[in-house]
């Protein structure tokens, strides 16, 4: 529908030290309005300490049909995982 507000994607940082995570989308007339709507729709239960909103039209996404060329080549390259190293115990959780 042409008279709908533009679509925005919403990213929220749950707590200090974690990165913003995509939580969903919403409609809003401009960026400030999108922030307010995101606050009302996605942080009602103390989900976040920081909000990013991005016009959905400005996001360039990979296409599902590229799956073969994009992701399959990584299937047989287990050596890219750092699982062949012994980690000293006193390093702690990584």
């Amino acid at each position, binding site marked *: 529908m042409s008279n709908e507000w533009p679509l925005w994607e919403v990213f929220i940082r749950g707590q200090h030290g974690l990165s913003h995570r995509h939580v969903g989308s919403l*409609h*809003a*007339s401009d960026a*400030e*309005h999108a922030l*307010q*709507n995101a606050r*009302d*729709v996605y942080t*009602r239960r103390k989900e976040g300490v920081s909000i990013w909103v991005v016009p959905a039209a400005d996001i360039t996404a990979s296409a599902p049909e590229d799956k073969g060329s994009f992701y399959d080549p990584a299937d047989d390259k287990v050596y890219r995982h750092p699982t062949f190293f012994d980690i000293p115990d006193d390093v702690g959780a990584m």
Partner: protein
Amino acid sequence: MSVEGLLRLGDNTLVLGQRLSAWCGHAPALEEDIALANIALDLIGQTQLWLGLAAAREGQGRDADTLAFHRDAWDFRNLLLVEQPNRDFGVTMMRQFLFDTWHLAALTALTEHADADISAIAQKAVKEVTYHRERSTDTVIALGDGTEESHNRMQSALDRLWPYVGEMFASDDADLTNMAALRAPFDTHVTATLAEATLVRPDSDFAHMGGKTGVRHSEHLGHMLATMQVLPRSYPDAKW
């Protein structure tokens, strides 16, 4: 310490919270629907605090629920503005903007109140209402300076509601702060917002009175209370 003054604050938030909750499921956009429901819940939460304190100070064995559900229209001490019907979204948001602007000024003053309970409630509520005012201000600007249709609706909403502005600043001894002193900050914010919204402030400052004193509520309050109170009055021990 004025129980009457506490009732005025709690009845404002109760009546407006009830009014706003009627939009749930009906607002023009999903996001606005959720936002209005959030604001309604903020106001009902503030009501529990104000009426709870009023009941405690009154000391007659009543609680916030008794005051909300078992008083009649003439016992209510809310402003006439908040009992005005929702009508269209423009009227609802203009009513919200005018109330929020007064409410934020009143709560800001009350954060300094000598009574620690009153000041504590005001300090909690002022954070919520800061956001309410930001949101309703932006909506008034967006719709006022929007399409010809939205502009006309916002101007007619302003014309319709302006006669209810004056009562907010009619101060007497029962008020917990000097309401007349809030007129200047109110005017500053309203004038700036209306200019940006391309809306014209009505010439007449005629004001309907009688809500906060309980002397003369409009006919709308009784109808609203009938809906709001029917369940607890029909089933007094009902739990839900």
